[in-house]
């Protein structure tokens, strides 16, 4: 069928009408190939304007539409809807921007008219090479991926799982529960962390809508909100691996934090001086009764050293002061009459209940000492802790136990996780939220959320609050039964031209391209492609084309634009 192009220019009231000689533009384009109508209207986006378009499309049997008006950011969709209503494929349409980028930036009317003619001709030449494209509706996948089986991950999974929404919970280790499962009483309530985590594990394991992948890591995530394709790689007993493909609509990253190890602790005698332990080691000793239990040791004097590794990591880990206050309380209960010193640099006591909790520790006998530097040395009959008080004075303590309170750091594998998910890292290496205040749970990628210590050290209660918030974000946006419209203007590969060089795989930021070794060609997954066109520019054999931004279409535009 022959092309019948209608060209319409919008006066936009005085905005375009006063700065561009509309009649000159109409004269310039009306004789162009395939143009059957060139017309003007006062305000094309208005009801009467749209009716004017529809009537002309009908009477002139137009097959293609070009509108010269405002920015496509304003009314491209408006006119695409007019096309749809009139039975023209909305992609057989081109809007050229003669308001923001001509009339409003060009003072000289003659120049503005001349530029408008150039752009109008470019749009008309371009639209002749447009292809009709059809929208596809994709049902959202309501299932959710949760990475990390600690309290944050489990809390998110439990809130999300339902008959309409399966949750895939991926845990790297052999068991769920994370760091909290090994904890005794936790501040500020002194309820048992271990019992709480174990109860959550039971709930998760008993939930029919949560699929737990143990000994597993997420190895591939491609796609977008509502439509992620995930590969979970599990370790088998025989040393082999098992890849499971999982489709989800959103993901919650709850990979937690690890405790700093190595030099900062070793410098304070950890590993070389008897009686120097880390806070995690003390937690285990308190839990298994080797301190305070029957036949257990009862240290007479203990020094907690806070902020171990703080200078090295460059941030306050937020939870260690309160954790030491808690451990001091437990120690004072287990070893009656013991002397407990907490050597701190700055106290971090946030929240409603924490101040009272700390005061409770002091009341129970903990001695808070502000210090600027600490040295630990072994000696006969104890450990010497020398520290300066900041005003030039120094103090020496003789204790029989030193508890080092190290910084919390990102877990191993965080960098790889960030790269896989396209999430940024903050300077300290934790996953970065889109905005600390406005989007604290969002990862900057639609449909990926961060819970718990994945984005920085957090207390158990804060982690659970975040997990609930992540679940809220998912529940409010990823509604079962809804559909999404994937990008239509995507890239595609012409198999006959593809040489299988896989350059496109290298440049695609979305993992949308796969290589088929049988045919020695690559394929683009249209449901994953976002339509940037990077692969088009990278393809050395010109085998890739981006719908609606093809070489031919851009060529036509270029030719008229520089005439």
């Amino acid at each position, binding site marked *: 069928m022959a092309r019948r192009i209608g060209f319409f220019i919008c006066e936009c009231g005085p905005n375009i009408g006063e700065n561009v000689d509309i009649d000159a533009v109409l004269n310039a384009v009306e004789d162009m190939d395939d143009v059957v109508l060139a017309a003007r209207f006062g305000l094309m986006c208005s009801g009467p304007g749209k009716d004017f378009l529809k009537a002309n499309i009908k009477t002139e049997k137009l097959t293609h539409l070009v509108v010269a008006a405002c920015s496509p950011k304003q009314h491209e969709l408006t006119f695409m809807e007019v096309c749809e209503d009139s039975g023209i494929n909305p992609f057989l349409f081109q809007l050229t921007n003669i308001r923001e980028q001509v009339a*409003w*930036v060009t003072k000289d009317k003659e120049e503005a008219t001349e530029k408008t003619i150039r752009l109008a001709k470019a749009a008309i030449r371009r639209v002749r090479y447009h292809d009709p494209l059809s929208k596809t509706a994709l049902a959202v996948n309501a299932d959710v991926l949760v990475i990390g089986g600690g309290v944050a991950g489990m809390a998110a999974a439990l809130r999300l799982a339902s008959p309409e929404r399966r949750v895939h919970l991926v845990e790297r280790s052999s068991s769920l529960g994370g760091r909290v499962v090994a904890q005794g009483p936790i501040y500020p309530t002194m309820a048992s962390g271990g019992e709480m985590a174990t109860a959550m594990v039971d709930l998760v394991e008993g939930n029919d809508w949560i699929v737990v992948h143990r000994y597993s890591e997420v190895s591939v995530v491609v796609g977008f909100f509502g439509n992620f394709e995930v590969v979970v790689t599990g370790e088998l007993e025989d040393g082999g691996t098992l890849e499971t493909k999982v489709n989800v609509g959103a993901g919650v990253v709850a990979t937690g934090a690890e405790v700093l190890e190595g030099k900062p602790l070793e410098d304070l005698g950890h590993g070389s001086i008897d009686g120097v332990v880390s806070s995690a080691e003390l937690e285990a000793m308190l839990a298994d009764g080797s301190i305070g239990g029957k036949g257990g040791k009862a240290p007479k004097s203990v020094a907690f050293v806070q902020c171990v590794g703080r200078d090295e990591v460059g941030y306050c880990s937020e939870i260690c002061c309160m954790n030491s206050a808690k451990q001091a309380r437990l120690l004072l209960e287990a070893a009656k009459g013991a002397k407990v010193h907490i050597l701190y640099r700055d106290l971090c006591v946030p929240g409603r209940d924490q101040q009272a909790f700390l005061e409770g520790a002091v009341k129970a006998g903990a001695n808070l000492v502000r210090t600027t530097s600490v040295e630990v040395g072994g000696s006969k009959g104890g450990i010497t802790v020398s520290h300066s008080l900041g005003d030039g004075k120094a103090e020496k303590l003789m204790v029989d136990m030193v508890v080092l309170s190290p910084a919390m750091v990102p877990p191993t594998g965080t960098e790889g996780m960030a790269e896989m998910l396209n999430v940024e890292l903050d300077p300290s290496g934790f996953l970065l939220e889109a905005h600390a205040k406005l989007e604290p749970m969002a990862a900057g990628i639609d449909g990926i959320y961060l819970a718990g210590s994945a984005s920085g050290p957090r207390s158990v209660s804060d982690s659970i609050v975040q997990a609930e918030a992540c679940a809220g974000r998912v529940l409010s946006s990823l509604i079962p039964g809804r559909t999404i419209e994937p990008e239509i*203007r995507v890239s595609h590969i012409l198999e006959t031209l593809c040489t299988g060089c896989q350059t496109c795989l290298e440049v695609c930021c979305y993992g949308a391209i796969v290589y088929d070794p049988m045919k020695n060609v690559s394929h683009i997954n249209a449901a994953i492609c976002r339509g940037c*066109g990077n692969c088009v520019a990278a393809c050395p054999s010109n085998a890739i084309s981006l719908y609606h931004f093809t070489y031919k279409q851009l060529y036509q535009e270029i030719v008229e634009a520089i005439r």
Partner: protein
Amino acid sequence: MTSSDAKADSQGFRPRVVGFLCNWCSYAGADLAGTSRLDVPAAISPIRVMCSSRVDPVLIMTALMRGADGVLVTGCHPGDCHYDKGNYFARRRFALTDQILTSLGLEPERVRLSWVSASEGPRYAEVVNEFIEEIRELGPNPMRTNRSL
């Protein structure tokens, strides 16, 4: 100066410049220059692309071979690309474009890559004004008159 850009100057030179604008940052920046009623030389013809990474050397060369006096490519600032890293790819390809231009005997200054964000209307106007000024100094694309190339 800006008022006479699309018209011939005293030597009869009327610059023609193609501007490839990425949809998400630079095109919106150019729109903002409009809503702010700034002066942008009419010599530039904006062409919208989704990402600066779509603008391969072939498109740039096409414009120059067809007689464009200059080609301006604008994209999101480093780190702000809507498609994550597209602008980095655009930047890398620019090194190649430079070499092609030199080997063809064209001034590499005829092609420019600039970052313009959606909020940088004034910067867009400034970049275009500067670039057109530079093209004026370079004079017409020799390919326009010397078709043997």
